[in-house]
């Protein structure tokens, strides 16, 4: 492949293993995003409730996009059965998921502040754990926990927008997963019916679609769009 260099081009060479100065590195990482939107994302604080198939993808996507601060809560540790869809590696088996996720994020975007909380999220503590977040993503596994934590967010975080997921199990069509605004502050991603309890399983491809849609709603909200 040949790349033409034109008059006035700014050309930088990097020696493998030698990173540029932090401010320059950050500018280059985000050179494919409009600067005004990158600034909005960097100023934001987003909460992620759960660091499994949904949460590990949402956290990675938001961190790659340059969201300045992520508060991630999950009580669980990495297990082999997570690896078919969750963004962890063999070396991370047994580590708290939030710690493993913070490590992963540092590996590609060291400019994100990650607050890693190894705690069980409940209706009562949901508001406290994610205090200061303008948007929270519900990324839990069980239907009852989803219901109770979303209720907790609605009750205890009166200013926050909530992006939840329901209906992403199995091998149904990807396009059946949609995003809708249902309450005044609640966005819901999923087909609303595909239940893990029906034995249909969980696949990286379909869970990933839902997680990417959650991430995309959050990025659009932070950029000032009304999704």
């Amino acid at each position, binding site marked *: 492949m040949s790349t033409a260099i034109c008059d006035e081009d700014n050309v930088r060479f990097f020696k493998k293993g030698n990173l540029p100065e932090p401010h320059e590195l950050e500018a280059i990482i985000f050179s494919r995003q409009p600067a005004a939107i990158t600034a909005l994302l960097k100023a934001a604080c987003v909460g992620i409730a759960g660091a499994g198939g949904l949460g590990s993808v949402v956290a990675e996507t938001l961190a790659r996009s340059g969201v300045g601060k992520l508060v991630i809560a999950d009580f669980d540790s990495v297990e082999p059965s997570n690896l078919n869809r969750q963004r962890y590696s063999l070396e991370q088996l047994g580590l708290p998921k939030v710690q493993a996720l913070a490590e992963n994020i540092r590996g590609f975007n060291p400019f994100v502040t990650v607050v890693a909380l190894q705690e069980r999220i409940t209706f009562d503590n949901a508001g406290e754990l994610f205090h200061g977040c303008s948007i929270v993503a519900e*990324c839990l*596994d069980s*239907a*009852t926990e989803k219901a109770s934590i979303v209720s907790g967010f609605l*009750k205890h975080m009166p200013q926050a927008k909530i992006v939840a997921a329901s209906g992403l199990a199995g091998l149904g069509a990807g396009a059946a997963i949609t995003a809708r605004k*249902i*309450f005044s502050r609640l966005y819901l991603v999923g087909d609303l019916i595909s239940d893990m309890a029906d034995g249909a399983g969980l696949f990286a491809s379909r869970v990933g679609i839902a997680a990417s849609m959650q991430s995309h709603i959050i990025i659009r909200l932070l950029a000032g769009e009304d999704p």
Partner: protein
Amino acid sequence: MKLRVNGEDRILDKPLSTVGQVLDHFGVPWVRAAVELNEDAVDPGLFDKTPVSDGDRIEIVSFVGGG
């Protein structure tokens, strides 16, 4: 009795007096439900104590598992 449920007007044959009764009527298990009544969140512990009246707007999500 008339309620606006998830954006649709519903005429109910018998009057329902609490959020819990509305969930039962529509077959939504309480433990899977998140509810807003007239744009206010309803505490799941108070589904059976939160009154509904004619003309109320109620939004119900019934969650399924997976993540």
